[in-house]
């Protein structure tokens, strides 16, 4: 194969960077950013950065043909499909729940308990 020889120093630098980022992840986990989502975002961003370093340097993507970028990219797209469609479930569970307790928008909207007591029983 026609890969250029990567100097050992590069590998050691990247290894060092990965270790520092790991330490950073642990340190950040103890800080409360006030909003749970923000903590997750920070942790995931560091993880993505680490994964990129491994892919591009350790796995030689930097020195590879474009088709290997395509293949690596497609796995990212597949991960987005997996997480995205899974979230259609988790993010929408409350929608239906809250709709059950609301009047149907296009009907004249009396409070649901009085409008349809028999149908409402099923929700409790």
């Amino acid at each position: 194969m026609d890969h250029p020889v990567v100097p050992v120093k590069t590998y050691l630098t990247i290894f060092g960077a990965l270790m520092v980022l790991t330490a950073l992840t642990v340190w950040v986990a103890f800080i409360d950013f006030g909003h749970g989502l923000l903590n997750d975002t920070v942790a995931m961003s560091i993880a993505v950065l680490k994964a990129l370093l491994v892919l591009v340097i350790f796995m030689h993507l930097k020195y590879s043909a474009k088709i290997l970028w395509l293949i690596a990219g497609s796995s990212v797209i597949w991960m987005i499909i997996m997480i995205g469609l899974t979230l259609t479930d988790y993010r929408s569970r409350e929608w239906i729940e809250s709709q059950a307790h609301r009047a149907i928008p296009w009907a004249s909207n009396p409070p649901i308990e009085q409008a349809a007591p028999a149908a409402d029983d099923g929700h409790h």
Partner: protein
Amino acid sequence: MSSAPDTSATAMPKNYLNEKITVSSWLLTLDHKRIAILYLVSLLAFFLIGGLAALVFRVELMTPEADVLRSETYNKFFTTHGIVMIFFFLIPSIPAVLGNFLVPVMIGARDFAFPKINLASWYVFMFGGVLALIATIAGGVETGWTFYTPYSTMYANSNVILAVCGAFIAGFSSIMTGLNFIVTIHKMRAPGLTWFRLPLFIWAMYATALVILLGTPVVAITLVMIFVERAFGFGIFDPALGGDPILFQHLFWFYSHPAVYIMILPAMGVVSELISCFSKRRLYGYRVIVFSSLAIAVIGFFVWGHHMFVSSQSTFAGLTFSFLTFFVAVPTALKMLNWIMTLHKGSVSLASPMLYAFGFLGLFVIGGLTGLFLSTLATDIHLHDTYFVVAHFHYVMVGGGVMGFLGGLHFWWPKITGRMYPEGLAIFAAIVIFIGFNLTFFPQFQLGVHGMPRRYHVYPEEFQVLHIASSTGAMVLGFGYLIMGAYLIWSLKFGKIAGKNPWNARGLEWETDSPPPTHNFHETPVVRHPVYAYEYASETSNEPDVQSEKGHV
């Protein structure tokens, strides 16, 4: 069947089977054809184990009471059947046996790009298989092949970890095979063999390999999650620890629904080859079939939530997945129409491989259309977890996957072994298998519609007649497989010499010797014609002295 090669070395010129016949030359071989034989023998052993487990619980189901098996034992039997048949037979069946044998030969290569990875894949597969068998022998697993949480992580008192490890390890074997397919098809095609001259079997293998590479890592990670939750109490799926059991179903079906296409796409590839050869026509709509294979591979990843309509998945997600599921029927229907159009005005002959192809067409249509009942949200509420589902996926996996595998095995058997099997018996066995299959699974549609739940062995008496029909069918089916096994083994030694091209087919695999020499071709083939060039006379190897398909109508 033993892995001993053809003994009559004098009758055959030097080939991959008789070049070296020591045990180590088989167990350490890097020849993709020998690795295919190793897979064939081991997969047939797994098929036998899975089939016997099914026969035992079909006997139990002949009466409404529990008289042969206790409840827990019954659960263990159907779990064994499921795990063995899915992970250790259906998923590897066509790719690891026929694909391993044929991909390099069909594209005019000497071997795969990574022969050592190919051999390693077999050892990894066997290691996984042995672990799963140990789990069965050491007391069994009763979770069903899907390992649903929280049962598998919290309640099941059985060898779940061992079985999960087996499935996990077997997954790596799939990944190795898939990787080999993709690289080999990209880099090692013979001169002149452009992408759109590739046989559809190769395209099917390519699409399958994509699904394997993109999906299998997910199920591997999911099974590891079961392991760490069960062994170390990490909270992933257990609500008490902050987890969610439905997350398991999402992750599991993200792989396991596309896994259905890992089983069915290769069978579709085989059927394309069979229909073209036994209609003596270029396939109608070649490119449509190519792109529909790729479309199935992609769309297959968007539909997994239809397994979870009655779980606590949100109704909105249920609607989305139901809607998306209908799309997968489109490329499948396109293939079906193109196959039928190929038959139309073709010169159709009913040799035994073609009977399996016809079996596939009929049974897979039933399997596919009943899938639409299940992907419709409202009807699924009624049919979910009933025998209707059992019948549906057996029509797809056995009627589609196994029929494709057997058709392919019969079609390429002369190429693999150099010998013909007795055609009359083969036709008889194909018909017995077809009848047995339908007798087994058609009554299950009715059972399901009338409300018989799956995975129960005690049931109301009104269901008994249909259960007896189904059990009888299972025995007929088993008998059909036995006949087939017997004449195939017989043919290894006593079958007529096949010659290069017994079916007068087109494709590079028919231009080399049967069985092929160790490096597949005596000189690198050059492709000058489009694929399935039945309009041209066969250039090389249509020898009139060998059995032709015309005699068997």
